[in-house]
């Protein structure tokens, strides 16, 4: 349903996308997970006709995004990262005019607008202009607007950023319900729990490239061991690293750029006494130790050496 081939986008001296290849199947909830500046929004821009790729091609359904823009726009609905609601209109008018841009007849526009306002709990605000709306209300209205013309593919750029937990849950339900009607959804996020809970498949992007792709489960299992024990010690010597590598269940040991050691293993807590012993045998002092359970965060760390939150 969504496909990109060798997409590259350069803004001046900055390479935002670097040979990006993606394929999203019809009816899938697909997540782009990555830190800020990874190229997620640029990817959404390329797929929604707003960013012209420097190289490469992209398709929505059978239509080349760059050459068949109008056909593509009929198939997609877009929820932007920053609300871009029409400040000159009321909430209901935002929906009905959006429907009109897509050629819906007037009775159908009113029917859909009322139903979406109800669904997104905005009926009592229908006749108000949106400049007084809270962030959560604007976000809900943005999603309602994107669903107004019933698009086959829904793009949501960081849909839950800045939302309270209750609205976030409501949003997840709405996305699932829309997907249950056979619609394809592509969302971007830097929230791993959300990606884990919602997405059928995920691409982890960093520096404009896909660095890992699969179901959340597959991705988590792809990290050697699954658990990560991060230790900080007074001094790191080759002897210590080798000793840690020989511990049972340890698949990989890496020194991080900020002078810590990441130990990838198939168990967590039970490894701690052995790590402590190895450190003291090597003549170093243990300063800090942290255990992470298998997660997409660890996966990101494994592939990039950086935390998603950095």
């Amino acid at each position, binding site marked *: 349903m969504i496909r990109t081939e060798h997409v590259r986008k350069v803004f001046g001296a900055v390479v935002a996308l670097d040979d990006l290849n993606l394929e999203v199947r019809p009816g899938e909830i697909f997540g782009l997970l990555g830190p800020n500046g990874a190229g997620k929004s640029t990817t959404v821009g390329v797929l929604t006709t707003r960013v012209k790729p420097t190289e490469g091609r992209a398709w929505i359904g059978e239509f080349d995004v760059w050459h068949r823009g*109008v056909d593509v*726009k009929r198939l997609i609905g877009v929820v932007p990262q920053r609300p871009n609601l029409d*400040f*000159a209109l009321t909430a209901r*008018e935002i929906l009905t005019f959006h429907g009109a841009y*897509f050629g819906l007849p007037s009775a159908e526009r009113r029917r859909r607008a009322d139903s979406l306002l109800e669904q997104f709990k905005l009926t009592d605000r229908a006749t108000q202009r949106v400049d007084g709306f809270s962030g959560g209300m604007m976000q809900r209205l943005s999603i309602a607007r994107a669903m107004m013309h019933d698009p086959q593919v829904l793009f949501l750029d960081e849909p839950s950023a800045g939302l309270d937990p209750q609205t976030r849950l409501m949003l997840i339900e709405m996305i699932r319900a829309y997907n249950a009607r056979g619609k394809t959804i592509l969302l971007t996020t830097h929230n791993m729990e959300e990606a884990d809970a919602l997405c059928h498949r995920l691409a982890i992007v960093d520096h404009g490239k896909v660095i890992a792709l699969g179901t959340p489960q597959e991705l988590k299992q792809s990290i050697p061991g699954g658990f990560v024990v991060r230790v900080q010690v007074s001094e790191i010597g080759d002897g210590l690293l080798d000793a840690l590598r020989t511990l049972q269940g340890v698949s990989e040991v890496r020194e991080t750029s900020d002078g810590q050691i990441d130990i990838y293993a198939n168990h967590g807590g039970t490894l701690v006494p052995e790590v402590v012993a190895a450190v003291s045998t090597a003549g170093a002092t243990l300063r800090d130790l942290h255990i992470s359970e298998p997660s997409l965060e660890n996966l990101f760390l494994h592939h990039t050496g950086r935390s998603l939150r950095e």
Partner: protein
Amino acid sequence: MNLKTFLAMLARDAHVARRNFVQLAFQTLLQPMMFTFIFGRVMTESGLMPPQYKSLLLPGIIALSMIMTGTWAVTMPLIAEFQFTKEIEDRLLAPMNLEWLAVEKVVSGMIQALISGLVVIPMAWLVMGGVSLGDAHIGLFIAIALLVAALSASLGLALGCSVGQQQVGLMFSMVMAPMIFFGCTYYPWAALAKFPIMKRIVLINPLVYASEGFRSALAPNTPHLPKLAILGALVGFDLAFFVLGLRQFKKKAIS
């Protein structure tokens, strides 16, 4: 082009303009009205200006009001929608080639400029206590009105897609104010005979052709530029501003 989408966008602009009608009217018509009253009524009735001055002033006031209204109606929303509220994005994603959205903005600005022209004529006529328009040429007047409306809206498109949010004040003092004062609105171009250099330089000002154009149509007996030169210049400026505006619009719409 997708006509339904185009008309829906025009309906949206009409809806917003209707809602802000009073504010828009004051914004664009109050100043020309005060000028009309002072120069057309106070100065003529006090005997400082001859009564014939009214026939010179009315065409200039129409040109000025139309240019101000049309330019304002396109420029200000474009600056806000592209740079601040981003609300134009929803329309950029509508199923229509985005060039047509620029055309829609121009058509919407033209309609507002024409309405302003229609309102200002009887108002100025009343404020000045009647103006003799015996020899007015209606066909030419309609042609000039359409070209001036297109000029105002195309200029609005070009400015609205080129000027930054912080430069709006500067745009008015550096572009609009000189355009108004050197636009032959309050005097005919022929009156610049004693200022040969200025007389040449003001010819780069599109408002000159708008004022002189209305003068040639409404008060053909007063001095004015040759009709062909006026029509040619207006068509040229319309095209130049539209092409420039469209280029800037596409730059803003697609990164």
